[in-house]
């Protein structure tokens, strides 16, 4: 079974996070590192502030109970409330259907990012675009978002809602800056 190491892959600290990084070609790299080492290499903790606990000793049951709070999926179905932030990882597969139904097909967060988290991630050593991309999901979602914003802008202008139109334009500007930063790397020809 996959045993989660309880030491950082880069130093000797034992407070280990389960981290992930999305590369420009949209592949995901996962590794276990401490907060400092992860930040240094542009990795983002999967669970901000929640250290992943070693789960090897109860490998047989981990699929059914959250390793952090012990909630089982059966319990969740009974009460309709998750137990802790880590439940989202523990029940990722089972939650997909529920999210699909209740979120009109939305699968990725688009929107606000905690300000301090964003600052910390963008002022690190990695390229700002890269860290932001990790936080904001793939290029495909940004393209979808841009399309939806464009549609809203058209409607706002049509209805002469100029204050709202200006706001949408600002959003488009932000979104397209991010998309532009990532898209050159996304194009197959760009790297060659």
């Amino acid at each position, binding site marked *: 079974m996959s045993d989660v190491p309880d030491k950082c892959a880069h130093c000797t600290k034992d407070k280990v996070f389960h981290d992930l990084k999305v590369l420009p070609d949209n592949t995901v790299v996962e590794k276990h590192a401490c907060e400092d080492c992860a930040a240094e290499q542009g990795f983002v903790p999967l669970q901000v502030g929640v250290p992943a606990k070693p789960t090897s000793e109860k490998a047989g049951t981990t699929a059914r109970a959250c390793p*952090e709070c012990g909630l089982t999926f059966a319990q969740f179905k009974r009460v309709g*409330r998750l137990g802790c932030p880590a439940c989202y990882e523990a029940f990722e597969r089972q939650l997909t259907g529920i999210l699909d139904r209740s*979120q009109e097909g*939305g699968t990725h*967060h688009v929107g606000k990012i905690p300000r301090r988290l964003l600052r910390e991630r963008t002022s690190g050593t990695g390229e700002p675009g890269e860290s932001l991309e990790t936080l904001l*999901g793939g290029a495909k979602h940004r393209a979808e978002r841009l399309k939806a914003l464009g549609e809203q802008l058209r409607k706002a202008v049509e209805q002469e809602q100029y204050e709202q139109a200006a706001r949408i334009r600002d*959003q488009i500007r932000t979104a397209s800056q991010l998309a532009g930063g990532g898209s050159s790397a996304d194009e197959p020809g760009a790297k060659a």
Partner: protein
Amino acid sequence: MNQDGQNQDGPSQGGQDEPWVSELQGRCPEWLRGEGPAADVVLSSRVRLARNLAGMAFTPRASQDDSELVMTRVRAQLEQLGTDRLSIDLRGCPKERGRLLVERQLISAALLAGRQRQAKGDANQDPRGVVTWLGDERLAVMINEEDHIRIQSLRSGFDLPSALRSADEIDDAIEATLDYAFHPRLGYLTACPTNVGTGARFSVMLHLPALAITGDLERAKRAAHDMALAVRGFYGEGTESAGDFFQLSNQTTLGRSEGMLLDEMALEIVPQIIEYERESRRKLMNTQRVLLEDRVHRALGTARSARLLSSEEAMKLLGLIRLGVVLRVIDDVALPTVHGLMLAVQPAHLSLAHGGELESGDRRAARATLMRDRMKSKGAG
């Protein structure tokens, strides 16, 4: 005035002589001010943000100590913000006083009841509370509802953008030192997966009496449902919509940004319903004026003469009177009088105005008396 000092000594909070009870009662909350864009149809706009602290169990699975810690940390952070702050610990708060906060829409009925935690024991001792700002009650932060933090921002009339701005500011202020549970793909993590993502809910409180009279209300409600909006009554989930007041809110929180969700409501859905109601009002004024005048003046007549009123009947009367005032079919009642009564006729407001002593039978008599007094014709005075 900062009342935090009175709220640091545990379960005695909310006791007999809490100054906040009279402090709140004499004031008009933001959502009843009757101002702002499209105030003829839209009573208020509300933005709610659900947030949880990182690395801690959500309220339903939290221990008493966890909840205590959340409460301490969030209140300490809010302590630095603004003056006239009112911080209320709901532990041991007498129900009538708590209900006052529910009626003012500062807290949910669920928060008052406690038992967000799925633990045994006295629900009323669950650490939970609310922080608001006196004067306008535009902002309220509920602590240890189903999520650790629920920020609520209100504006009179149809003004979701500025409600969102204020909610954002307080959100940033809390996050300045506290880590939120945030996931790169799923966004803000919430106890219920239906809130995950932005954790944002945008609502507007609409007054749709003309659609009710013309019989088009069901169609409008169905249209809202089709556009994935939830339709609720005056006091939220499962409550009656006496007076033809309805709350409309978005249900999607994942995959679309706050701005996109807001614009959908602010540019597309709500303007259509506002226009639909206004059109019905015009139709009534132009082609069925006598019918309209009959409904509205019967309501005013009852309000000026009834000796017993239930809160539901009072709200029905006030809804029709409000329509009459807005359309100038009634010219001797002011809108603030109507709005003031919408709150004053609620059970806890009424009881506490009488020293908290009213039985439900006496309450109906007191309600009718209050209504008659405040609705007195200016001409007759």
